[in-house]
C-alpha cells in the first residue's frame, strides 16, 4: 500500500554507489588528496604578511649610518638584500623583471647631512604593482626611521635623537602609484581564467572519445597521436584569444587600465600560454580513464596554480619551497609577464626569462602527452 519510499531500494542504491566509488580508485584518491593539498597550501604556503622580500641598495654614501639603516631593514625581516647592484639602472631593470621588490636609494652626502641635522631624505622605491605584497614592508620602513640609528647617535650626536627622526623616509610607489588593487588583479585574472577554462576544455577532449567508444575508431585509422593532439588544441587557441581580448576590453572600459607595453607582445605570449594550458589538459585527458578523472586532475592542477603563482598571495612572501613549486607553474610566469607588459610597459627583453620558463613547461607536457597517448587499446 505505502510504496512511496522503500528503504530496501534506497539501500540498494547506497550499496551500488559505494561499490562504484571503491572501484574508481582515482576518484577516491582525489577525494582525499584535494583537501590535504588545499590545507597544506593554504596553511603553510600562504603568508598574508609577506616578509623577506627581495631588495637592493643603490648607495652613493658609504658611511656607517647607511650601513646601520640597511642592517635595521634586514633585521625587520621584511627586506632581504639578496642582490648587489652597481647602478640605479640595473636596479630598475631587475625591478621591471620582477626580481626586485624594493630599491633603497641613499643620496650622496647622506651621512654628512644627517650629522648636520638637515634630515636628509632616504628614498625607498617599491614595486607597487602588487600592493598587498609591499604594504607591510613600507610601513615597517617608515617606523624604522626613528629607531634605526639610535645606537650610532651617541655622545655629541645624541641631540639628533631628541625630536623627529634623523632622516626623512620617502616612499615612491612605482608602476601603480594609486595603489590600485585592480591594477594588480585584473591582468592576473586573465591568466587565471585562461588556466581554468583551457585546461578543463581539453581535459575532456580524449576521455570523451574513450567514453563514447569513438576512440576505437580513431585508433583504427591512420591518425597519428600528434595529429589528434594538435587537432584538438588549435581550435581552442582561438577561444583563448577571444577571452584575452574580452578581458583587455573590460580592463580598458570598466577599470580604466591601459596596456602600457606592446599589445602584440601580449598576444604573442598569451598564445603560448594558452597552448601550454591546452596541452596540460590534453595530457590529463590521455592519462584519465573517464571524464570525471580528467576533471579531478584539472582541479589538482588548478588549485596550486592559483595559490602558488602569486595570484592570491604575493609570490615573494611565500616560503622557499612554495616559491620553488610555484616557479614551475606556467601561471606564475605568465602573471609576471602580463603585469609587466600591462603595468610596467615591459618589452621582450624583460619578460624573456619567464617566457622561456613557460616554453620549457609547454615542451615537457607535450612530450609527456604524446608519449602517454596510447595507439592501442592495451
Amino acid at each position, binding site marked *: 500500500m505505502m510504496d512511496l519510499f522503500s528503504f530496501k531500494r534506497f539501500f540498494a542504491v547506497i550499496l551500488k554507489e559505494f561499490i562504484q566509488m571503491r572501484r574508481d580508485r582515482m576518484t577516491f584518491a582525489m577525494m582525499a588528496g584535494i583537501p590535504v593539498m588545499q590545507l597544506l597550501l593554504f596553511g603553510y604556503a600562504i603568508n598574508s604578511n609577506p616578509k623577506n622580500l627581495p631588495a637592493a641598495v643603490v648607495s652613493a654614501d658609504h658611511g656607517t649610518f647607511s650601513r646601520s639603516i640597511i642592517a635595521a631593514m634586514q633585521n625587520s625581516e621584511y627586506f632581504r638584500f639578496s642582490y648587489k647592484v652597481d647602478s640605479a639602472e640595473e636596479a630598475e631593470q631587475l625591478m621591471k623583471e620582477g626580481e626586485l621588490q624594493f630599491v633603497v636609494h641613499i643620496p650622496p652626502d647622506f651621512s654628512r647631512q644627517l650629522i648636520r641635522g638637515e634630515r636628509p631624505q632616504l628614498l625607498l622605491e617599491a614595486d607597487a604593482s602588487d600592493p598587498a605584497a609591499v604594504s607591510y614592508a613600507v610601513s615597517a620602513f617608515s617606523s624604522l626611521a626613528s629607531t634605526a640609528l639610535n645606537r650610532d647617535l651617541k655622545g655629541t650626536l645624541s641631540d639628533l635623537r631628541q625630536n623627529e627622526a634623523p632622516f626623512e623616509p620617502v616612499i615612491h610607489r612605482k608602476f601603480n602609484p594609486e595603489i590600485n588593487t585592480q591594477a594588480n588583479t585584473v591582468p592576473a585574472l586573465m591568466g587565471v581564467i585562461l588556466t581554468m577554462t583551457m585546461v578543463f576544455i581539453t581535459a575532456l577532449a580524449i576521455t570523451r572519445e574513450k567514453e563514447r*567508444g*569513438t576512440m576505437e*575508431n580513431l585508433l*583504427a585509422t*591512420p591518425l597519428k597521436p600528434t595529429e589528434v593532439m594538435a587537432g584538438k588544441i588549435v581550435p581552442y587557441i582561438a577561444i583563448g584569444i577571444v577571452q584575452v581580448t574580452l578581458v583587455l576590453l573590460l580592463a580598458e572600459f570598466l577599470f580604466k587600465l591601459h596596456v602600457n607595453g606592446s599589445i602584440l607582445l601580449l598576444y604573442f605570449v598569451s598564445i603560448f600560454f594558452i597552448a601550454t594550458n591546452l596541452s596540460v589538459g590534453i595530457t590529463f585527458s590521455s592519462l584519465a580513464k573517464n571524464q570525471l578523472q580528467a576533471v579531478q586532475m584539472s582541479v589538482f592542477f588548478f588549485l596550486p596554480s592559483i595559490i602558488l603563482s602569486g595570484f592570491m598571495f604575493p609570490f615573494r612572501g611565500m616560503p622557499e619551497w612554495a616559491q620553488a613549486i610555484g616557479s614551475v607553474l606556467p601561471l606564475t610566469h605568465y602573471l609576471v609577464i602580463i603585469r609587466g607588459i600591462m603595468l610596467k610597459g615591459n618589452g621582450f627583453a624583460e619578460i624573456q626569462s619567464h617566457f622561456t620558463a613557460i616554453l620549457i613547461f609547454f615542451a615537457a607536457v607535450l612530450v609527456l602527452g604524446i608519449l602517454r597517448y596510447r595507439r592501442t*587499446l*592495451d
Partner: protein
Amino acid sequence: MSELVIDVTGIVKKFSGRTVVDRLSLKVRRGEIFGFLGPNGSGKTTFIRMLCGLLTPDAGEGKCLGYNILKDQNIIRRHAGYMTQKFSFYEDLTVRENLDFIARIYDVPDRKKSIIETMEKLNFSSRANQLAGSLSGGWKQRLALAACLLHKPELLLLDEPTAGVDPKARREFWDEVHKLASEENMTVLITTHYMDEAERCTRLAYIAYGKLLAEGTLAEVISSSGLYTWSVSAPQKELPAMIRKLQADKAVLQAAPFGNTLHVSGTDKSATENAIKTVCAGVQELSVEEIESGLEDVFIHLMDKGKDNFQ
C-alpha cells in the same frame, strides 16, 4: 587467386594473466567471405583488434595484407576497414559530416564525389543531414559500413555488423558484402551469432575460449564434427519428460525442442540411437528420422567440447 590476405600463427593475448586468445592460427584468402564464429567472450573482437593493430599480441606473428602485424600496423590501418562491434562514430555529427571526417583522414581522392556515391549506394541520400545519434540501430550499422568502405579497403573486418538489424536489412547487408567480395575482390572477415549468416560465408572458423575448434567450408565443418542428429516428433505433452530422460543419458549430447519435434544429437551413432529407442518406448504417434546436423547443433557441440578441453 589463393593469395593469403590474413596469415597469422600462434597468436596469444592475455588480459591480466587470463588467456583470451590462445595460440590462434588463421589463413584467409583474397576474395573470401570468412565467417568468424564463437560464443560470447570467446575472443573474436580481441583477435580482430590484434589484426588491425589496436592490441598488441603477447605472442605469435603473422601477416595481414602482406604486412607484419607487429610492425606495420600503420600500413595495415590504411588498407583495412574495421567496423567496430559498438557504434563508434560521432553521434553529434550528421551522416555527411561523419563520412567527411573519415574521408579526410584517409585522404580519399575526389572526396565530395566519393561521399555522395557512398551515400547513394547505401540509400543514405535522404538522411545525409540527420545527426548520427538520431539514426535507428540498423541505420547506424549501415553508416558504419559506409564509413569503412570510403577508402576502398582491401580487407574488411566486420565485428557483428548485423546485431540488432531486421531480417530484410540483414539480407541487404549481406547482398552488399557479397557484391563487394565478388566485384571489388574485397576480402571480408565477419563475426556473427546468426547461423543463417554463417551459412552465407565461403569459409568458417569457430573459436571458443580463444581456441580454434573448427575451420573449413560449411560442409567440412559439419562433417568433421562427427555429430549425428535425429528429429523425433511426439505429442507435445510427452516432450518435457522425454527431454529430461534423453539429457540424463550419457550418449546424448544435445536434446532440444524445435516446435513439436526434438533434435537429438550425439557422436556415438549406435549408442545415441539406443538411447532414443529406450526413451521412446511406449510413446504413441511417434516418428524418428535421422537428419543432417545443423550448424547450430555443431556449434553447441563444439562449445561443450571446448569447455571440457578448457577445464
